[in-house]
């Protein structure tokens, strides 16, 4: 519990609520201790429209971002320094609205280019468990991560990706997987000629079901697919800013280990990758833990 209190104090230092639209005006720093509040909505959860007035009921937290300077490769050039975060829930799902400055939108990955991305991280150690390290957790103290990538959103929207998008005018004599006489045989060959697909690497999944990926980690270098995809996300790039809404089911089953359970406090941290700076992996801006609590609908 002492450790948890320490993290709350640390969260105080970086998660200052703004007094803009949607924030609880007038109470300033006193509210900082509360960190992020996931406020219940009475109407539909605004999962698609970041401008939905329902978001005005969510208190905005300005999260300070720091360079990832612990694990190699470390980010040596400072990127985006703040991210505005709001959260709502409807008793079934929680929605997080993340908003940060990025002059350009990148949605393809090549040898020399990366995609824009953002991630939410939560402790996965239970309500009474120890708080993991905010940087990818630690051995025996896992974290749960939701990663949204603009490249995945592009694919989900049915747009060309990979070489089809990067080199639409390329000339190729023959792709062996295309030689199958039937759609079924072509599907088999496509897998055979694509080892990461054949071994089930979600990065290479031919059909994407979400622009996000649910992950777990117990320290740097341990990021692993969660095995079950429950989150989703959608981003809009406008006027030099990204606004991404990430939704995730609330944990309401009594027996299940919960990450987000109404009534329980927890923490959240965020990470941001700037594709135009070729950031990926550990080359990212990140925050430390921000305390999270649930709140009833505002009257």
């Amino acid at each position: 519990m002492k450790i948890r209190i320490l993290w709350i104090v640390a969260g105080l230092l970086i998660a200052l609520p703004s007094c803009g639209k949607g924030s609880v005006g007038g109470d300033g720093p006193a509210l900082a201790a509360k960190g992020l509040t996931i406020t219940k909505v009475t109407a539909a959860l605004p999962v698609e429209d970041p401008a939905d007035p329902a978001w005005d009921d969510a208190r905005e937290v300005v999260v300070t971002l720091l360079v990832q300077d612990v694990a190699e490769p470390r980010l040596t050039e400072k990127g985006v320094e703040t991210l505005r975060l709001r959260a709502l829930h409807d008793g079934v799902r929680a929605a997080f609205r993340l908003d940060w400055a990025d002059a350009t939108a990148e949605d393809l990955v090549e040898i020399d280019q990366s995609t824009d991305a953002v991630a939410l991280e939560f402790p996965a150690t239970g309500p009474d468990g120890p708080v993991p390290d905010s940087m990818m957790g630690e051995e025996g103290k896992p974290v749960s991560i939701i990663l949204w990538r603009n490249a995945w959103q592009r694919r989900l929207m049915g747009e060309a990706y990979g070489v089809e998008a990067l080199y639409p005018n390329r000339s190729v004599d023959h792709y062996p997987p295309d030689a199958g006489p039937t759609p079924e045989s072509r599907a088999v060959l496509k897998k055979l000629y694509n080892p990461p697909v054949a071994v089930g690497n979600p990065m290479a999944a031919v059909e994407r079901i979400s622009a996000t990926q649910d992950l777990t980690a117990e320290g740097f270098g341990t990021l692993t697919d969660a095995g079950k995809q429950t989150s989703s996300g959608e981003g809009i790039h406008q006027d030099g800013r990204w606004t991404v809404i990430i939704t995730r089911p609330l944990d309401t089953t009594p027996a299940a280990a919960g990450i987000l359970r109404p009534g329980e406090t927890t923490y959240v941290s965020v990470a941001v990758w700037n594709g135009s700076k070729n950031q990926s992996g550990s080359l990212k801006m990140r925050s430390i833990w921000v305390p999270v609590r649930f709140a009833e609908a505002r009257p």
Partner: protein
Amino acid sequence: MARVNNWQIDRDMSYWYAEKRPKKQFAAIFDINKCIACQTCTIACKTTWTSGRGQEYMLWNNVESKPFGFYPIAWDVHALELLGAGDWKDGVYQGRTLFEAAREGERVLGWRPAADDYANPNLGEDDALDAEALIDKGLELLVPQAVWFFYLARICNHCTYPACLAACPRGAIYKRPEDGIVLADQKKCRGYRECVKACPYKKVFFNADAGVSQKCIGCYPLIEQNEQPRCFQNCIGKIRNQGFLSRPEDAREDNPLDYLVHIRKLALPLLPQLGLEPNVYYVPPIHAPKTFLHQMFGPGVEHALATYKAAAEDPVLVALLSLFGCTPKTIHRFKVIGDQVAGYDEKGGEIVRVPVKEPVWVRAPMKGDVPRLNVT
């Protein structure tokens, strides 16, 4: 960083992980003097492993013309420029390796190629375009650069200290303990491309379709059947021999790799000063400037060239070089038996036997009124 021993630079050096050598180390020798750049090796590899989407530009095996040929563009020039000059003194490298020279916050001193750098693997290398005009302008005076070249066949070096492995923050690249082959785990990779940036030989490639990095796998399914990789089996110039290399202190005289690398010191590593202890060794070309070869293969060049030039008078060397390309199997031991040389598998079974010198018949130039060609 751990301290490890790198025998190619004859000193200890810093590396991200502790020294842990495999049970056997995949290694190869390429005799540059025999390569004709027919690219059969390149095609053998290409059709076997990299014919899928996202692999269009990948050449896990390539042959480039030195000094002006590169794949990707200027791969070696960039690596050497980044590292800077380093002296050798009595066979000991005095400069810094890529691991020791790593920038703050990184594990390896690397550079990330642009996608276009791979786009023209042999552009202009063998092009005689305007050669006459250039000669008229005094091309022959630009010695030595303008009047020499050699072919450099390259695969992954399956390094003892792989930069790709050191740089991967996920540990998705691993070195097989049974044969030292370096592989990129296709399930674990998340496409960060740190390996692409770190490998100075640029033999790890990003697949933009699959979103993961991929590389030469040393044809490990063949290695597991005691067979040499595809690019070796298909080499029509018979320039290649794959085997397993011991540490210098454990060198066996009957191991083809040990004999040529450690005992006769005829085959040399590519850019040993980078510090990766690469495991593809080259018999250096005899007609290139020694300063260039010294930079490319280290201080053993003069000895290797002298040994190669005198090889015709050396029955064991002639015999062993005759074994190159004579069998698809991996030769673990060899023995000269009279005017023949035999190769054996790991258990001592004979797998190939060839004459040290092919018999030659000289036929009369004319048979009656019909001219005849001599053939061997």
